[in-house]
């Protein structure tokens, strides 16, 4: 509705390239299926009919990393799974973002022992942390909306690395 109001009779819209690109990136972000443990069930519930995540652009969950831009690490990451996670992250094309869903992905959660990474940020760089054990679907959607706001505020000069 907003674009038609701006167009009126002229058919010309002026905006910055950053706004247009960020608008495109946020409104159709496809998450990669990376449900590991209990948080995966809440992620599925967030995708299902009651708390529809398709409203926010996440229509499909792609199992292939080559076709997705968002990795929601839902669940605890064990030491055996760490290299697999890193490899999948590397296979995703730029631009890519990571949401650490749940307490185990953010900081190790209840499990402070030899078998679990204390926070998935020891393996991949994380953009948004969603707390909860497991976080409610509304909390996950709030995390996704926070990520959208972060992406909308991205500037090209920060992304253009040497």
């Amino acid at each position, binding site marked *: 509705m907003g674009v038609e109001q701006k167009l009126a009779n002229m058919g010309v819209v002026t905006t910055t390239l950053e706004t247009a690109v960020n608008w495109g990136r946020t409104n159709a972000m496809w998450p990669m299926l990376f449900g590991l443990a209990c948080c995966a069930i809440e992620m599925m519930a967030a995708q299902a009919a009651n708390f529809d995540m398709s409203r926010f652009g996440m229509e499909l969950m792609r199992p292939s990393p080559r076709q997705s831009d968002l990795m929601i690490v839902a669940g605890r990451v064990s030491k055996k799974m760490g290299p697999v996670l890193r490899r999948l992250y590397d296979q995703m094309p730029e631009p890519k973002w990571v949401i650490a869903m749940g307490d185990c992905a953010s900081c190790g959660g209840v499990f402070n*022992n030899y078998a679990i990474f204390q*926070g998935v940020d*020891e393996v991949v*760089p994380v953009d948004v942390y969603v707390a909860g054990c497991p976080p409610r679907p509304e909390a996950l959607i709030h995390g996704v909306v926070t990520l959208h706001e972060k992406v909308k505020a991205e500037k090209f000069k920060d992304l253009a690395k040497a």
Partner: protein
Amino acid sequence: MDNKLEKIVQVLQGKFNATFEEFRGEAHVFVSAEQIIEALTLLRDEQDFALLSTVTAVDYWPQESPRFHVIYQLTSLTQNLSVQLRVPLNGSQPKVRTATGIFQSANWREREVYDMFGIEFEGHPDPRRILMPEDFKDHPLRKDFPLGYEEPQFTFNFDEIDLRKPYAKE
């Protein structure tokens, strides 16, 4: 203890000279490592204990002999009974013969006991680690293996722990 269970325990006592303990209606029968295969075969064939519920182990470090107890929990569906066999093993080179030939569910359970405790099962068809990565060296559930506890970060020690945490690079 149930009457039928008492009779079975008496059979085991007679044949293998086994000791037993009773607690809350359960029977725990101590069998030696050489006799365990015979005992399991007897219970499966003659007493109709068709289901091996679990195989696990306990570590009694620093007590060296016996250091481990390997536990076999058997269930009989037709008689609705359960019995537990315990095999005491010493700390150095703990070995016991595999029960895979009698109950096939022992295959993975014994791999797990090997992985977690280091107890070798002679004649096992697939002696690999099951839960830890293949190149892991120690045995986690032994009492001398540390928990791997990491200091939680509160505000007073946040920065010093942050420096030590291995954050990922891009």
